[in-house]
């Protein structure tokens, strides 16, 4: 293999791992970082987005539009669940783990009952390109671009929009925000909705590359948790660097020693992180700050 091919191939593998980590984790990270809730139904929101995307394609929508529909639908479901369940548990974060686990059981088995054990997927669009002797999928590039776009979009939403300002204010001092006229409940609902919609987006965008089954979300779960653990509470200064770090670990170990090494590398990263940086990358970056 010539140098260019090696370079392109390494970058492609890194980007692929990065995209998967970011997209797996971002919904979970928003909900955990902004609200302190561990959403164990995260995988089911991913599945929900994927299923909705496939339905939308089957109704004749073009794929990009279908993915958006899937994402919005997951976000909507998220908001409903926040209203019905999660809202009552903000003072009891451990119980919210249980409740969201319950939701996840209902969702995955409910999907099985309603739509059967499997569903025909949609094909992966866009074809492939060659570099040297290797061929690559264009769609994987779309995934990478989406991961970066999601981070960028999140940054813009939480830093440049009115909603973002209010959301951050609510997270930092909920009582004060409320005393300044912020409807904090609405902020919580919307934030949870955004987290769920991001999970739905992940599901929708990976739907063409995966098998559609009710438990499909679980393949994202480990990566999502690992990224959030390593990243800590903040999406921007935590999740994104953690995903870079883990993508390097995963991609290099995978290409060197195979998939298992990549997986084990991720877990070692977690163990090392909790010892060295108990609050994740976020804690490290915020150290010494207010």
């Amino acid at each position, binding site marked *: 293999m010539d140098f260019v091919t090696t370079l392109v191939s390494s970058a492609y593998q890194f980007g692929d791992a990065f995209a998967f980590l970011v997209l797996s984790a971002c919904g979970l990270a928003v909900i955990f970082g902004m609200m302190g809730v561990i959403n*164990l139904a995260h995988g089911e929101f991913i599945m929900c987005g994927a299923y909705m995307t496939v339905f939308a394609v089957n109704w004749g929508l073009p794929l990009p539009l279908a993915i958006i529909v899937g994402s919005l639908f997951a976000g909507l479901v998220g908001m409903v669940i926040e209203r019905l369940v999660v809202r009552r548990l903000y003072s009891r974060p451990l*119980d919210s783990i249980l*409740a969201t686990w*319950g939701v996840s059981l209902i969702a995955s088995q*409910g999907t099985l009952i309603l739509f059967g054990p499997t569903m025909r997927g949609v094909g992966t669009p866009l074809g492939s390109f060659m570099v040297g002797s290797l061929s690559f999928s264009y769609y994987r590039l779309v995934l990478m671009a989406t991961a970066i776009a999601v981070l960028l979009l999140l940054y813009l939403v939480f830093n440049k929009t009115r909603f973002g300002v209010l959301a951050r204010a609510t997270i930092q001092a909920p009582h004060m925000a409320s005393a300044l006229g912020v409807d904090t409940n609405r902020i919580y609902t919307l934030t949870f909705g955004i987290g769920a919609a991001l999970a739905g987006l992940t599901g929708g965008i990976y739907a063409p590359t995966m098998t559609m089954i009710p438990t499909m979300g679980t393949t994202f*779960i*480990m990566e999502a*948790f690992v990224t959030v653990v390593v990243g800590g509470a903040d999406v921007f200064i935590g999740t994104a660097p953690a995903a870079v770090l883990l993508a390097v670990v995963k991609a290099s170990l995978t290409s060197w020693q195979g998939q298992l090494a990549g997986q*084990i590398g991720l877990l070692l990263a977690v163990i090392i992180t909790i010892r060295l940086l108990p609050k994740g990358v976020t804690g490290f970056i915020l150290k010494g700050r207010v």
Partner: protein
Amino acid sequence: MTLSRIFKRLEGPQTMGKGPLFWTAFAVVLAIALAYPLFADGYDVGNNIYFLNWTFMALGLSIIWGYGGSLSFGQTAFFGVAGYSYGILTINFGTAYGLGVVAVLMAIAIAALFAAILGYFLFFGRISGIFLGIVTLSVTLALERFMAQTAGPQWTVGSARLNGFNGMSGMPPLTLPWFGGDIVLYPDIGLYYLVLGLLVIIYLGLRILVNSKFGNVLVAVRENPERAEMLGYDIRKYQLGGFVIGAALAGLSGALYTSWGQYITPSSMGITSAALPIIWVAVGGRSDITATLIGTLIVLSGFQALTIYGSQYALVVMGLLLVCTVLLAPKGLVANAGILLGSLFNRKNGSA
């Protein structure tokens, strides 16, 4: 007088139920449990051993989570570690001459050691609250994934093959050394009495533990870690202690389970398995071992019945039950019922 002193140590504000009424009920339940094999068929006895096996893990979770305030999502990791340890030991050395009992004890010790190492990182790294839950879950999933790939022939310990996802089997059942030959404990009456005996001992032992100085501090750490620290307690050590005890109990469940079914797999540590103990304990009532014990047995038999009669709706009903419990009975169904019962009883007494 000595009897009353024993009872005094068994009772305290950390456990629901006290006084003659409670202990009479306890004795009645115990008597029924002891007589049970006389009028139940073999299947029910075997099935109940299976249920009782799990209660140790639940009680352990109650100690670390309910009493100590630290949610461990990793109980099944210790369950699995002990199960595999038991398998490896007994496949290599057999269970005759009391080696089976030694294997159980060593399996528990290995699980406890693993918990001690992991717990050291966690508690001395000051990881607490919800983050502790994620980290312990991640470790559990890691262990599951690691064990699932040990299918190859290189993964053997002595003559025991770890056997990957398919799980390890072929370990002999537990035997007790006895005069005139070992007693082989298949899942029938013998094992039933052994497990029941262990449960009674551990239940009473935990009652003493949680009402002891150690238990007091454990609850103190849950209630107000800052105050506990400002009384000079190194709270990390107590959290670690509770974690290790919880892990050892999970280990006992793991070893017994493995000997019961002569089988252990990585999926015993998967995310579903990892969540189950939390559900049992939460539904029953986590901060009381009696509530945990009753709750665990109710949930286990309830879920099994649901699976038998509810077919595919079982999982949906389980999910609903969980959500409703969390929302409507935050202390747990059994604990809330107990509190209700207690207040009714008190009111009656008061008005009389």
